[in-house]
C-alpha cells in the first residue's frame, strides 16, 4: 500500500562527514588482510569516515544545515519545523532537535523533534516532513538525518567494525503545489533482536555487568552497549520486503523500473544492493552507490549517495527517483518522487 503526499518539494540537500578516514589497510592491522579482503568483497566498503570522541551526529547535521541555509538563502527564522532522524543522539534527553534549534538559530516558534530510526529513517523523515507541509500547512521544513555508528561498533566485531561509517545530512523541503511523493512504509518488530544494542536504554540500564566487553557465544569480544547484528537475518528480511515495497511506490507513481533516473538504496552493503538491483531489473547506472567511499552510513546513506553520486541536476529536467531504506526495527520505507534541480553544496568536512 502506498500513500501519495502532494504539495511539497525538496529544495536542497547538504551532507557532512568527519575529516578522519579509515582505510581497508587500517582495518587489516586489526583483522588481518585476508579476513578484511573477504569481508570487503561482500560489503564493498573501501574507506569510511570516523568521528572523533567529541563529534556527534548533530554536529555534522548542524554543519550541513548552516551551509545549506546559506546556499539556499533561507533566513533561519523562515523554517517552521526541524526533524532529527538518528540513533546516535547527543543525550537520552532532551531531544537533540531541541538543541539544534538553538544552534541553527531557528525561531522559538519552530516545531522540533527526534525520530529514532536508522536505515529506514531518511525516507521516513521525508514522509513526515512532506506530511507536515501538507497537513499542517507549513511552508518550510528541515530534515536532519545522520548517525555516528562507529561509536557503537565493537572493535573486534568484523560484521560491524568493517562496515559502518559516520555521516549526516540536512534536507530542505518547501511547499510546492507541483511537488509530492509516493510513500510506502512497514514495520516488523519481530526482527528487533537482529539489529540491536541490548543495554543502555531503560529495558536494561547501564550497569557494571553490561559494560565489560566479553567473548560471546559467537566468539566476538563485545559488550551489551555494542551493536549486535545478525547479517543473514537482515539480508533475508531485505529480500522479502524491499522489492514489493518498491513495487508499491512505482505502481502508485505509474512508473516502470526502466523509467527511473535512479534508485537510491540504503547503503547496507554492496552485495545486498546488487541483489536488489538485479531483482528489480535495474541497470548499474540506475543504482548509484556511495558505500565504497563512506561505508554504511545508516540514515545518511541515501542523501549522501544523492549528493555525491547524482548531484544537483542543474539545467536538467526533473528526475524520477525511487528511494528505499530498510533495516533496524525491522523498519522499511520507500519513496517515488520527481526531484527538480536543487541546491547541493559540496560535501562539508569537519
Amino acid at each position, binding site marked *: 500500500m502506498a500513500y501519495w503526499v502532494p504539495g511539497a518539494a525538496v529544495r536542497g540537500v547538504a551532507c557532512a562527514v568527519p575529516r578522519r578516514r579509515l582505510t581497508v589497510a587500517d582495518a587489516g592491522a586489526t583483522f588481518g588482510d585476508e579476513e578484511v579482503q573477504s569481508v570487503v568483497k561482500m560489503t564493498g566498503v573501501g574507506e569510511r569516515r570516523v568521528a572523533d570522541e567529541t563529534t556527534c551526529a548533530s554536529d555534522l547535521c548542524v554543519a550541513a544545515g548552516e551551509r545549506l541555509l546559506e546556499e539556499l538563502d533561507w533566513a533561519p527564522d523562515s523554517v517552521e519545523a526541524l526533524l532529527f532522524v538518528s540513533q546516535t543522539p547527543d543525550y537520552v534527553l532532551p531531544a537533540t532537535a531541541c538543541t539544534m534549534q538553538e544552534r541553527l538559530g531557528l525561531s522559538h516558534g519552530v516545531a522540533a523533534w527526534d525520530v529514532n530510526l536508522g536505515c529506514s529513517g531518511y525516507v521516513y523523515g521525508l514522509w513526515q516532513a512532506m506530511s507536515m507541509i501538507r497537513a499542517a500547512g507549513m511552508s518550510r521544513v528541515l530534515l536532519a538525518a545522520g548517525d555516528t555508528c562507529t561509536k557503537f561498533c565493537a572493535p573486534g566485531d568484523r560484521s560491524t567494525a568493517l562496515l559502518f561509517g559516520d555521516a549526516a545530512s540536512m534536507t530542505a523541503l518547501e511547499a510546492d503545489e507541483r511537488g509530492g511523493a509516493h510513500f510506502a512504509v512497514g514495520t516488523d518488530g519481530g526482527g528487533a533482536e537482529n539489529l540491536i544494542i541490548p543495554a543502555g536504554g531503560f529495558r536494561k540500564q547501564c550497569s557494571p555487568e553490561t559494560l565489560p566487553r566479553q567473548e560471546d557465544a559467537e566468539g566476538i569480544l563485545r559488550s551489551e552497549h555494542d551493536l549486535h547484528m545478525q547479517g*543473514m537475518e537482515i539480508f*533475508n528480511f531485505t529480500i522479502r520486503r524491499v522489492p514489493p515495497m518498491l513495487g508499491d511506490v512505482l505502481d502508485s507513481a505509474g512508473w516502470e523500473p526502466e523509467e527511473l533516473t535512479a534508485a537510491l538504496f540504503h547503503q547496507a552493503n554492496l*552485495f545486498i544492493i546488487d*541483489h536488489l538491483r538485479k*531483482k528489480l531489473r535495474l541497470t548499474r547506472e540506475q543504482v548509484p552507490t556511495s558505500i565504497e567511499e563512506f561505508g554504511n552510513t545508516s540514515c545518511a546513506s541515501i542523501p549522501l549517495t544523492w549528493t555525491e553520486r547524482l548531484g544537483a541536476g542543474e539545467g536538467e529536467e526533473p528526475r524520477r527517483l525511487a528511494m528505499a531504506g530498510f533495516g533496524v526495527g525491522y523498519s522499511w520505507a520507500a519513496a517515488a518522487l520527481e526531484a527538480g534541480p536543487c541546491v547541493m553544496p559540496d560535501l562539508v568536512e569537519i
Partner: protein
Amino acid sequence: VLDVDSVQEDFSLQEGAWDSLALVATIAALDDHFGVTVDATELGQAQTVGELVALAEAAQGGA
C-alpha cells in the same frame, strides 16, 4: 575448486568455509534461481548439502 558432479547429499558443509558470508551468498543464490527465501538460522545449522536441499524444497513448498 569443487567438482560439482562429485557433490553428494552427505557432503559436509561444516568442514569448509561455511561462514556467514557463504550463508548470505547461498540465500541470494536460492532467491535468484528458485525464488525462495530460506530461514537464515536453519540454514546456518545445516550440516550437509542434503539438509540444505531439504530446506530449499520446504521453502519452495511453502512459497
